[in-house]
């Protein structure tokens, strides 16, 4: 009931309201390719968003592969300088040495990957805007 009264009151516009309506009234603006421009920008954003992650992964992987391989080579060399009795006899802490070397390289790769992914996403965002 209250809402009906409010709606009725809104409809009962006086002469001043009509004058303001005529003052505020403006000619419709022709589209003139406006909607097409917006749709083109939306489509471009959709494509950029779809491509951002795979491209960032590929670029990140390509850049990270060299330092990652260097780390792996260094880790394998480290194993060769470990005394033979350590490598052969106490088999319980040899896996720890390998584990440390591998996890170190993985951490470094993860850091490289994260940084590159972040840069890629920020770049994609900048392109979108």
């Amino acid at each position: 009931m209250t809402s009906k009264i409010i709606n009725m009151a809104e409809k009962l516009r006086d002469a001043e309201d009509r004058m303001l309506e005529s003052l505020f009234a403006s000619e419709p603006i022709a589209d003139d390719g406006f909607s097409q421009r917006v749709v083109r920008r939306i489509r471009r954003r959709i494509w950029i968003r779809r491509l951002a992650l795979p491209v960032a992964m590929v670029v990140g992987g390509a850049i990270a592969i060299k330092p990652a391989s260097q780390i792996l080579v260094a880790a394998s060399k480290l194993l060769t300088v470990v005394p033979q009795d350590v490598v052969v006899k106490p088999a319980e802490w040899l896996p720890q040495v390998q584990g440390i070397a591998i996890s170190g390289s993985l951490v470094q790769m993860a850091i490289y990957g994260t940084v590159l992914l972040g840069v890629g996403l920020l770049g994609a965002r900048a392109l979108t805007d």
Partner: protein
Amino acid sequence: MEVHGAGAIAQPATARDDQYLVALAVASQDTAAFGELIRRHQSQVRNFLRKLAADPVEADDLSQEAFLHAWDKLQTYSGRGSFIGWLLKVAYTTFLQAKRKSKRYAEVLDEAGHVADMESRSYTEDSQEVSDLDKLLAVLSQEERAIMVMSYACGLSHREIGDATGLPVGTVKSIIFRGKEKIRTSFDIKDHQHG
């Protein structure tokens, strides 16, 4: 609401209501359906922003931004109010964000000593032809202007304006009343109801 995918757009676009097109755009990321929504409402959105931003080129840039934001947030449109009311809400938010950004930019320029440039720019703007509506809008605050434009130019109900601005209906009514009072006193308009 049933959505049949992009193929269903073959029917005449005018036969479809806004909510159907919104559902189509959300469900299948259909940019053609959203394009139809833009075609339908671009005039109102651009007129609204032209009245707020004064510079038509800036207003059109803001309109594009507003439609891009609308696309990003389309799934948040509940279908409760009119679509144009929701669009104007997005447009108004875009305008306020741009205004805040340009204010910060002006502050940075000010600090860097570019005041002279800004002054010459405002002089150019002042020297342009000023319409009756511009004079009328000049006496209103930014909020009053937006609400008066939504009410008198876009024909939104008080409730729709409340939804768009995040203000209670009572506040919307009092802002409109205050705006009318300002216009009346500034332009010495007699109360039309009493001649």
